[in-house]
């Protein structure tokens, strides 16, 4: 990695659920691992998330969702990112996502889904590993 370069991460909560404890814990853990984490608060539209990722020039996006609307919202987010030619951004997700939906979401380009019980170390290591593979 070049001198001065920091990993920039957007932690976003798409949709209408208002449980952000998980998102905030992940945001803090990534910060404590030396990353710059942009947190945008609750109830973000796919458009807001894609636009924020663009303006902030992030390397990673973490999506947190507990409402069950992932099959509607994630495809829209991934399409907007693609439209903006931001396919080099690594996207992962977490929250309450049923096992049977995982394959479908991964097909959209979401790299990994972290369910309840995942440790923050696992997520940190995953982010570091997947970025070092790219560089």
């Amino acid at each position, binding site marked *: 990695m*070049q*001198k*001065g*370069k*920091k990993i*920039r991460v957007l932690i976003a909560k798409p949709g209408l659920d208002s449980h952000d404890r998980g998102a905030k814990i992940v*945001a*803090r853990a*990534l*910060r*404590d*691992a*030396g*990353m*710059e*984490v*942009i*947190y*945008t*608060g609750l109830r*973000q*539209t796919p*458009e*807001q998330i894609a*636009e*924020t990722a*663009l*303006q*902030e*020039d992030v390397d990673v996006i973490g999506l947190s969702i507990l409402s069950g609307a992932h099959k509607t919202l994630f495809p829209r987010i991934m399409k907007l990112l693609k439209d*903006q*030619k931001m396919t080099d951004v690594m996207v992962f997700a977490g929250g309450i996502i049923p096992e049977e939906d995982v394959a479908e979401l991964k097909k959209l380009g979401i790299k990994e889904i972290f369910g309840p019980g995942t440790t923050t170390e696992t997520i940190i290591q995953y982010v570091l590993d997947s970025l070092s593979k790219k560089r």
Partner: protein
Amino acid sequence: MTKIDEIAKGVLAGNKRSIARAITIVENEDPESQRLIAEIFAHSGKAHIIGLTGAGGAGKSTLIEKIVREYRRLGKTVGVVAVDPTSPFSGGALLGDRIRMQELCNDKDVFIRSMATRDYVGGIAKATKDAARILDAAGKDVVIVETAGAGQSEVEIIKVAQTIVVVHAPGLGDDIQAIKAGIMEIADIFVVNKADREGADKAVIDIQSNLQLNGKERPWKTPVMKTVALTGQGISELIDKIEKHRDFLQGNPEFKNASARTKTEEDLIDAVKEIITHSLIEKMKKDGDFYQLVHEIMEKKTDPTSAAKRLLKKTMKNET
């Protein structure tokens, strides 16, 4: 065309992806960043750059959201650079200023960038000035820089902005204590935000009397405004004052030029320092004397300044 040329061209055309990339390049101190700035520099200098500073919790982010809306209503395009502190322990940062500004995200004429201080002191990041410059060159009419929560001596913002707004709120610290030194003197406009709270009028009077104590008759009289950022109260009056300050700078070229000249001098000195640290120190380290001198200093045979002089003398001789 190289990558940097392409990004510079994109910035000048107002392309968001290019603006975002350009800011990353200056932030990371990419070796190419100088060339990027060189290419856009001539196109900067048109935007009005406003600095917002003050203690954490005064309501700076919420205030900025309202200021941006008001400028948009007036038909102006806006860029925002919002600075938050880097943890000195982990090197990481949590950048949360956007939480209060996300509604602006859908406006194509607003560009917001969060920035961590990254080891730099004074309430801004080293790259903040260049980020503002990039947004300026990209054609934004107004660029707003929000500093990290600042108390007394975090006054680096004066190197970046033309109009400085210092934000205070009643109940933050021991009234005027919280804003007494340094930061008091850099304000072009004072804002007491959360003015619907108890103690707002007293805060205004405190600040006013403090400003009077500064004594010196100045051509621009620093006003003290009251706002309630949450409801938008006092925002259009604040914009009026900011615009008045801008007119004042334009109507008093001697004042404007003097401050511009000082800023430019500092820019030049900073640039010289930058080059010295990068090239000269690299060269010095390659010379065997460097580590010999480190050894001598540790042995107390010489002191750091004398050693530095010897080293410089030798390196400069080899240079010419």
